């Protein structure tokens, strides 16, 4: 009985974390899938969302800024606004850069943001991080607290998904993809390319902050190690590309699927015996080595997915035009 209850709790955690990543992939899809913006600074916005929410909702603590005791919803709204403001400032100067260059610029800016959060100890407690972050519904008895938090995350994903689907089919979404596929044509049609791109960048970054705000609550502790680019920026990119960019369903699928692989592989490696004898050679410390091997396997799975589904598991489909669906035209990105 305990065992099945345990599987249930683990399934809840998979859905909760998968849902938080889905918020991030949907935000990225808005930037990359819609507008063709290569944002590689996800970790920065994620961290801003988590820190701002934590500082605003926590009771006063001597180690860092705080004591505002705001309720959850307004605190998250402020966090998203702060991230949006930062994104707007970055976007103003960087938005005209194309693909890889924007990627490298945003990665640099995100690292500078993370350095600031790590070094301005008076505000963020520096490398020691913020502990005891309040989580929504944590006053409920076990397991209802976890279920309610999961429901909150999943409902948020659903709302964002529906909103983005609507946007995708709207004239706004069509302008966005038009700009992505041919900037010059869109400009010639009289569209303010820079302004549309900036909108996508700011909205997407605010969603990333929302993901961070939930994640900070979920782990109840947030520090500089929490927004390591490898487990935030890169993982989210992998999720989006594997799931299918420019397809909101693909973005959500990628998040849940990749998170399940990322997390689930560890259960298997954890079961390996301490020592394996291979061709007569004893290999010690197997569980420790298996932890590295797991990362290797994740890399390999990624390569296989890329080679089999280079457009993602659910590729882009255009909204119905004249009653029929057409597949996507020229790819963005590779501008000779």
């Amino acid at each position, binding site marked *: 009985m305990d065992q099945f209850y345990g599987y249930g709790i683990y399934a809840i955690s998979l859905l909760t974390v998968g849902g938080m990543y889905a918020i991030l992939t949907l935000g990225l899809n808005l930037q990359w899938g819609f507008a063709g913006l290569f944002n590689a600074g996800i970790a920065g916005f994620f961290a801003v969302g988590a820190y701002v929410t934590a500082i605003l909702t926590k009771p006063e603590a001597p180690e860092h800024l705080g004591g505002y005791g705001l309720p959850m919803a307004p605190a998250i709204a402020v966090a998203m606004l702060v991230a949006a403001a930062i994104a707007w400032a970055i976007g103003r100067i960087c938005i005209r850069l194309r693909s890889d260059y924007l990627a490298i610029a945003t990665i640099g800016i995100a690292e500078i943001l993370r350095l600031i959060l790590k070094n301005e100890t008076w505000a963020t407690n520096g490398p020691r991080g913020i502990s005891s972050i309040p*989580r929504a519904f944590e006053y409920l008895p076990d397991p209802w607290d976890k279920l309610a938090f999961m429901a909150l995350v999943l409902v948020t994903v659903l709302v964002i998904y529906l909103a983005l689907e609507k946007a995708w089919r709207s004239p706004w979404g069509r302008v966005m993809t038009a700009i992505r596929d041919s900037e010059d044509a869109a400009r010639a049609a009289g569209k303010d390319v820079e302004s549309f791109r900036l909108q996508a960048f700011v909205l997407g970054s605010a969603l990333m902050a929302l993901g961070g705000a939930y994640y900070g609550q979920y782990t109840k*502790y947030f520090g500089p190690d929490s927004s390591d680019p490898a487990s935030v920026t890169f993982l989210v990119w992998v999720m989006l590309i594997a799931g299918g960019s420019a397809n909101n369903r693909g973005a959500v699928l990628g998040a849940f699927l990749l998170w399940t692989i990322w997390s689930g592989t560890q*259960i298997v490696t954890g*079961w390996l015996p301490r020592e394996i004898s291979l061709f007569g050679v004893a290999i010690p410390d197997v*569980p420790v080595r298996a932890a590295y091997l797991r990362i290797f396997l994740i890399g390999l799975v990624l390569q296989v997915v890329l080679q089999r589904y280079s457009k993602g598991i659910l590729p882009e489909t255009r909204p119905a035009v004249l009653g029929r669906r057409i597949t996507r035209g020229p790819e963005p990105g590779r501008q000779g």
Partner: protein
Amino acid sequence: MRRILLAGAAVLATATAGTAEVKLGSLGGVTGPIAEIVALLMEGRELAARHVNEQGGLFADGQQLTLVVGDSACDPKAAVDAATKLVNVDQVVAIVGPNCSGATLAAAQSVTIPAGVVILSESATSPAITALDDKDLVFRAAPSDAYQGIALANYILGQGVKTVALTNANDDYNAGLAAEFAKAFEAAGGKIAAHQVHEPNKANYRAEVATLGGAKADALVVFAYYGSSGIAIIRNALETGAYSKFFGADGMVNDELVNQLGVDALKDAAFTTPGADDSTGAFKAYMELAKDLKQPLGPYVPNAYDATFLLALAIEKAGSADRSKIAAALREVATPPGEVILPGEWAKAKALIAEGKDINYEGATGSLDFDAAGDVPGTYTLNTVTPDGKFAAKLLK
């Protein structure tokens, strides 16, 4: 896809088939920024589990103690995920680890405290863990930084060194330790001539060392992990002739330090580690048992042994793999009164528990008598490098 799922289900079924074993979670930063330190201390945990299993296992029917490794990667997100799996999927009785303080705070608050599972970390030293509202479920086999800062400050002042330059790596552990040390050192009348925070994992630290050297202090105090910046700082300080006298703490104690810098360079260096007193029987017993480990006295390796052995004793004492009884049992086996149990004495402890007698484990790292917050008192050892390139440990009084 379906085939993969079926294969997964098959693995799941075989792995959870009931065998006579007791699962103990072994959570640690196996990958990530301190992977090299964790790889060493995982050996300490494994050694303790081996001793338990070789001397009759757990309970009357000799069940095997199995360590289920979870990778907390020194990342709070990964720690929460790994702890969720250990607690719910693997249904471990208790958890030894995790290693980094941030990962410990996240795993404890998000997963293990609500689930009522005991965690015993051998290396998370942040004072913030003391203050945690932990329902008596979070324990540590390493003393809080606050004590180590005081111990090192007093030792340095006792050596007649009144002015030091201080540098620390910008991570939770070393920044905390540096803050506690600076407070204690200045309170006791010492002077910190320069304090320079450095980012770990840089190629060189000559600019930092130049600034520190400009302070013309008597010695350099380095709080860092040896691999990610500690060796580089000392190397740069020696190369530029800025300092030749060094002090530091447990993150620095590793044979690699001597391998890379040489014995000569370190003749005026001393580092504190949490309480391994080489005059005690417990320490000698541990050294004898641990002589096959790569580094028996590497950072937190003896603590890892003690933490794992203690949790095994607590499970034996509790009489069953019942999570809710572990905390109380842990306090009973770790603290007086009771017959003293030294590292490796599993068969003796098992017999005493079977007779209903009290036991009191004395570990390689000290008495491990938990206080109300689940912390152990600070006894500290001073580690110096001997002419043959080994670390010698001596208890700080």
